């Protein structure tokens, strides 16, 4: 057993780890429950298995096939999106959907059915998965696609790693003619401004998302910067595609946990103020390489350490259009009032393209992501309040970024969970799953395995 944590560095749990090496191997036999683990870019406890074993998929990182004519790629589940980009971009293809970091695995992208800046156009990652192999602890191997074993396909996409191990998957990429993105930045004064720009941007822009100044209050509540972009057409081509895989990044790294005093109300305000005014004045539209456009945080290695040893809590919710205005207002007001403000607050509109995944998080409406340094009780109370607001608005909270939602909230957010439960592999479980389904605890002794409490 050794101590592990996730990207949010909270919670810490004691768990074993076993490395997977070959996709044709049987699942390792171990005592207690297992859980696949990709690159650990989930924030809370959904990629942790306290008291049990995680199956590290990093060794399942082989490519199987890529057809540059059709853009269909087949690879093992531990292949990172970064690897796929290195393969695809020079040949004129891009990921159909990408989260804000490229250091996630294909298996992790399926299990959380991740979304990107183009949800309104492309839906979730799961929509672009053509098929995959699912290996269960009974030794069975199933080919899953929308046609074949469609129920297993639907249960596994967004299935939080609980239905078995995805050994390989086939994904349809999207054609691009240029690795550069034409980006426009549009400032908005408040929430209504955001909704207006968002509505008018959706028709012409593949990628949209906004940064919100979560310290602005009153009439400026919800002010921020709206980013929208499209891949540049061919005539913008400044570099031949084949040489275009620039890796950006200053090589900055956060080497140690920053002490708590670096992150206080004043420094966060200063950061938000400077960011807002600096970004506002940059030329728009401008041409930016896809790497800083999609993955601004990846250039600072280990940025999650700025929150210090106690880690931080992410909170990402979606609220439906009908209740969104009031709900977002309340969420922003509460987070500006309560405790330490969020460093990076992101707003985005989700479209109505359905996911094949039963447990998929995205649904039509607006999604807001906030992060809070873990300051114990105070932070927890605040996030609990945000959760309540979300529930009352008929929204949902994203499991990939959660370390604290209650079983009741989970049940309210994921109405398909009963149907889904029948597809969980009996040998698989996670800290998250036991937390939100206390009745499902297979081993009572697993409780109390959490090393640190807030």
């Amino acid at each position, binding site marked *: 057993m050794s101590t592990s944590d996730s990207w949010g560095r909270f919670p810490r749990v004691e768990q074993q780890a076993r*490395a997977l*090496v*070959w*996709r*044709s191997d049987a699942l390792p036999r171990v005592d207690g429950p297992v859980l696949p683990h990709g690159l650990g870019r989930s924030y809370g406890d959904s990629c942790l298995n306290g008291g049990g074993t995680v199956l590290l998929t990093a*060794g399942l990182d*082989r*490519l*199987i*096939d*890529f057809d540059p004519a059709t853009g269909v790629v087949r*690879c*093992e589940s531990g292949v990172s999106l970064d690897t796929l980009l290195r*393969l695809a971009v020079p040949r004129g293809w891009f990921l159909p959907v990408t989260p804000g970091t490229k250091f996630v695995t294909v298996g992790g992208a399926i299990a959380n059915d991740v979304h990107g800046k183009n949800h309104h156009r492309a839906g979730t990652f799961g929509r672009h998965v053509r098929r995959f192999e699912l290996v269960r602890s009974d030794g069975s191997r199933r080919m899953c696609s929308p046609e074949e074993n469609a129920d297993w396909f639907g249960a596994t996409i967004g299935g939080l790693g609980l239905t078995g191990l995805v050994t390989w998957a086939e994904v349809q990429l999207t054609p691009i003619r240029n690795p550069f993105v034409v980006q426009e930045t549009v400032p908005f004064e408040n929430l209504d401004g955001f909704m207006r720009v968002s509505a008018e941007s959706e028709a012409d822009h593949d990628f949209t998302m906004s940064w919100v100044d979560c310290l602005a209050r009153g009439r400026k509540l919800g002010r921020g910067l709206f980013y929208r972009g499209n891949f540049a057409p061919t005539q913008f081509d400044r570099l031949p595609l084949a040489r275009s895989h620039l890796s950006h990044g200053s090589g900055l790294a956060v080497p140690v946990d920053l002490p708590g005093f670096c992150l206080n109300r004043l420094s966060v305000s200063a950061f938000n103020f400077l960011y807002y005014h600096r970004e506002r004045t940059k030329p728009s539209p401008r041409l930016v390489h896809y790497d800083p456009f999609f993955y601004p945080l990846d250039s600072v290695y280990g940025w999650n350490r700025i929150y210090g040893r106690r880690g931080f809590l992410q909170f990402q919710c979606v609220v439906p259009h009908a209740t969104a205005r009031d709900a977002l207002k309340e969420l922003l007001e509460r987070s500006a009032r309560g405790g330490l403000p969020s460093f990076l607050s992101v707003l985005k509109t989700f479209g109505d393209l359905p996911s094949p995944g039963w447990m998929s998080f995205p649904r039509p409406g607006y999604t807001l992501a906030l992060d809070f340094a873990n300051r114990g009780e105070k932070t927890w109370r605040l996030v609990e309040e945000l959760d309540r607001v979300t529930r009352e608005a008929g929204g949902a909270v994203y499991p990939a970024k959660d370390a604290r939602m209650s079983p009741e909230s989970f049940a309210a957010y994921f109405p398909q969970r009963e149907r889904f439960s029948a597809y969980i592999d009996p040998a698989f479980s996670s800290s998250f799953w036991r937390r939100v389904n206390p009745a499902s605890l297979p081993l009572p002794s697993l409780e109390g395995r959490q090393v640190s409490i807030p």
Partner: protein
Amino acid sequence: MKKVIVLGATSAIAQATVRLLAARGAALYLVGRNAANLEAVARDATTRGAPKVEFRALDLNDCEAHASLVERAWQALGELDGAVLAHGVLGDQAESQRSWAATELVLRTNFLSAASLLTELANRFEAQKAGTLVVISSVAGDRGRQSNYVYGASKGALTVFLQGLRNRLAKSGVAVVTVKPGFVDTPMTAHVPKNKLFASPEQVARGLLKAADGRKNEVYVPGFWALIMLIIRSIPEPVFKRLKL
């Protein structure tokens, strides 16, 4: 190296090397024990850009098969200008002390089978007056230690064999590159607790190819092992034999 045979191609260091070679557009002939795993490595190499990848499942301890293996690889790729020998076992020192069979298996896999393959390959490379032989030995071959002298002896013998071979082939323009990794984080060492001395297979693969490109003789990867082994080699035997190493 444009047409390369890789022996022990499913080992972690070999896989990492295969990826780098594939990205450079080298044609590959991969040999390992497990056909399904070899196929996985071969497809990965093809997808990463290797123009031609063939593979063959074979237990390399079967030295009788080596001549025909090399012949087949030669036919498959048209000729060969590079060979990477990466197969090997760590063995279990305690088990080897109890059983000659266990000792023999380590010596056979790490030394005898390599010597046999190198004999085949060296003769062909010598005849064509070109080629690069890259062989993974180990820092463990630099000095026998109680904790793993059977493995160490197999690698030490290999290192000496390569020195002689290099001496012989120098005039034919064939490079013989001995790569001596230290601790590498691979399935072979999965049971060992990791520390700062451990290198990743990718790191070793990059060092290996750099040495091959530079037609180096003996290299330590990572380089700091040269210093560590210099110190270990210079401890006088009367002192060394009382150390717990």
